[in-house]
């Protein structure tokens, strides 16, 4: 048996339909699972890990386990390992879903009826989707080395990842920039300034890539 006695007891109680066993298990393991899945994701990726996505993935893994506890075999792995593996798989799925979503969003749209090409280009440029536009021309695998080169600063790269993941909340960017305290106009302005600078550099990155291609 690869699991601990405590895990085994939880598993047996959940299989037996104990009404509070899953809640106790979640209470006991949730934070650890989020932390360990985050560590696993970081060790396998050069991209900064989005912890909100990790938390969602761990939630899915736990709830899936509760729906189908018989899928877990205590002879094969500890429960924590099983759940971290499942959560990591869910995380990768969630991440690629986000990326596909961004790619679709950035795909060239046909001009609307009566809309000139110039108006359409203006609309695209105005939407500040430089990164998404870049993703339509460069594969995700190719992109990251270019980003690392263009953004030597770690915080800048974290900002890029948030933008990649379509994060809109100002407080997420403010946290990366070390802007503590409650939301304020000044904080929002600073976040916007950095995002604009990054967007400009990403645009140049795309242009340089196109010239090389």
């Amino acid at each position, binding site marked *: 048996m690869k699991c601990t006695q405590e895990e085994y007891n939880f598993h047996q109680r959940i299989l037996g339909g104990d*009404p509070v*066993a899953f809640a106790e298990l*979640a209470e006991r393991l*949730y934070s650890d699972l989020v*932390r360990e899945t985050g560590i696993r994701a970081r060790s396998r990726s050069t991209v900064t890990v989005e912890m909100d996505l990790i*938390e*969602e993935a761990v939630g899915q893994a736990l709830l899936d386990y*509760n729906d189908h506890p018989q899928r877990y075999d205590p002879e094969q792995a500890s429960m924590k390992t099983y759940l971290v593996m499942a959560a990591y798989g869910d995380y990768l799925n969630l991440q690629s879903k986000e990326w596909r979503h961004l790619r679709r969003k950035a795909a060239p749209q046909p001009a609307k009826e009566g809309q000139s090409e110039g108006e359409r280009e203006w609309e695209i440029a105005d939407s500040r989707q430089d990164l998404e536009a870049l993703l339509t021309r460069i594969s995700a695998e190719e992109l990251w080395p270019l980003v690392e080169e263009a953004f030597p600063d770690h915080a800048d790269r974290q900002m890029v990842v948030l933008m990649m993941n379509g994060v809109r909340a100002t407080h997420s960017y403010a946290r990366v920039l070390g802007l503590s305290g409650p939301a304020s106009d000044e904080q929002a302005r600073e976040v916007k300034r950095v995002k604009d600078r990054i967007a400009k550099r990403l645009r140049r990155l795309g242009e340089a890539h196109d010239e090389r291609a």
Partner: protein
Amino acid sequence: MSEHNPSLKRLAEMAEARPGLMSGLLMLFRRQESMDEEQLAAFLECDRGDLPRLALCRRPRPAPRFRRDIEEIAAYAGADPTRLAKLVRAAEVGEALRGTPAEVRRPPMLLAARDHEPPQVEAEQVAEDAEGAEDDSR
């Protein structure tokens, strides 16, 4: 990453879509009764902070286990068992009337009459309340 504090509240919210857990019932009851979390906690006579733990409990099984499950869940979440039983019954009736989820889709009268148990959790009162809730929601 060390700043990240995962909360059971988020997990409990995710669990609303899982029919086997209490989370969906709590949400439904709150909607039926137009309650916020604070009011729900007051109704159950528990701390608001304990609601996520309650939400992650499994739904009580039908009789003959209903009463014991309710008592276990209530003890775990620090809630009043009689109030909790009333909540479960009322939400189940609401659920049956809405036709979701599939596994609890059965006539409300059957739901109300399902558990004829010793009156330790006021089973008869609970059944009456459930019927009352059914009438109210019509």
